[in-house]
């Protein structure tokens, strides 16, 4: 019985095409290209406003060299937030629950920040391995600890996104099953469970947005250290 709750994370195939292919291509359809008109339609105006605000927010603390990453990080944010929010619709598949996808985002981008730092300013990048003002005796231990924390960053980035979304979806399914099964037996408890389910869904909407934001924010922080 418990195993069947994890079935939602295996994308089913239909005519040989897995559902993940449709789920991954949907964000492309939802965001139209801005036109050359002075006044666009409401959807493009909203989209442009959101992208501008987000890009200003993320790139304000970054130096000029980091601004080259603006397109990449803005499109990554848009992609992740769309995938997360679309996954909350019924019967849809969330690609970001797959660890493979999130690691595929996290590892190359983190590695790019590290390589940029090591290539352009190696002393400064290596200097991050030792915080200022540490007592002399602690230096070797701290360098080892900071190196481990550096290498764990991509793992943390990927697993954080996966775990949050997977846990949220599982909780929704469990509580929905509970409410559904309890309805003929104990209606009052079922109604309470339904209220809980409603609140949980609101939480999941928030989590979907926050997790996408955190992913991109941390990447911009790593970039800030290295640029």
């Amino acid at each position, binding site marked *: *019985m418990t195993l069947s709750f994890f079935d939602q994370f295996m994308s089913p195939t239909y005519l040989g095409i897995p559902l993940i292919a449709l789920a991954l291509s949907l964000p492309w359809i939802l965001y139209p290209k801005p036109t050359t008109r002075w006044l666009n339609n409401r959807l493009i105006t909203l989209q442009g406003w959101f992208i501008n605000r987000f890009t200003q927010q993320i790139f304000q603390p970054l130096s000029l060299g980091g601004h080259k990453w603006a397109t990449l990080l803005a499109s990554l944010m848009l992609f992740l937030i769309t995938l997360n929010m679309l996954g909350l619709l019924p019967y849809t598949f969330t690609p970001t629950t797959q660890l493979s996808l999130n690691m595929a985002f996290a590892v190359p981008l983190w590695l790019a920040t590290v390589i940029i730092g090591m290539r352009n300013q190696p002393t400064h990048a290596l200097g991050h391995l030792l915080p200022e003002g540490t007592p002399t005796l602690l230096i070797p231990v701290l360098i080892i600890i900071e190196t481990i924390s550096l290498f764990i960053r991509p793992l943390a980035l990927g697993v954080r996104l996966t775990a949050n979304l997977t846990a949220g979806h599982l909780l929704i399914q469990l509580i929905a099953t509970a409410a559904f099964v309890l309805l003929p037996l104990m209606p009052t408890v079922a109604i309470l469970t339904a209220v809980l389910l409603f609140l949980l869904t609101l939480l999941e909407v928030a989590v979907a947005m926050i997790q996408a934001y955190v992913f991109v924010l941390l990447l911009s922080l790593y970039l800030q250290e290295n640029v």
Partner: protein
Amino acid sequence: MTSHNALSPFIPIIPCSKPSAPVKMADRQVSLAEKRLMDVKLNQLGAWLGGRDFTPNGILSAIRRGHDRYYNKYINVKKGGIGGVAMLLVGYVAISYLWEYDHISKKYTLAYRACFISLHSCHS
């Protein structure tokens, strides 16, 4: 158009042929393969399908044309509301349901039947 002013004898008569019926854009002759699906007669359906472009480029351009038609009709309007995007999302949910149908139907037969039986036996 008849002019009844004093100058009328001096307006040159230009021979122009008026067609018996006004010509509209919809009367333009198009080949069968280029017609829209709703304009194809039933007995012409096979020939129409045979003439369509099913190469990857052709399919992509058909998707592009369909998307542009939907976008210009429902989203790229002066006071577009939530309806345009909402229809797209409902269509996406419907397609996902179709995709997952036999997966979900198995769940409802096996697991939940067992669950119902066990719960009912506890409380009865």
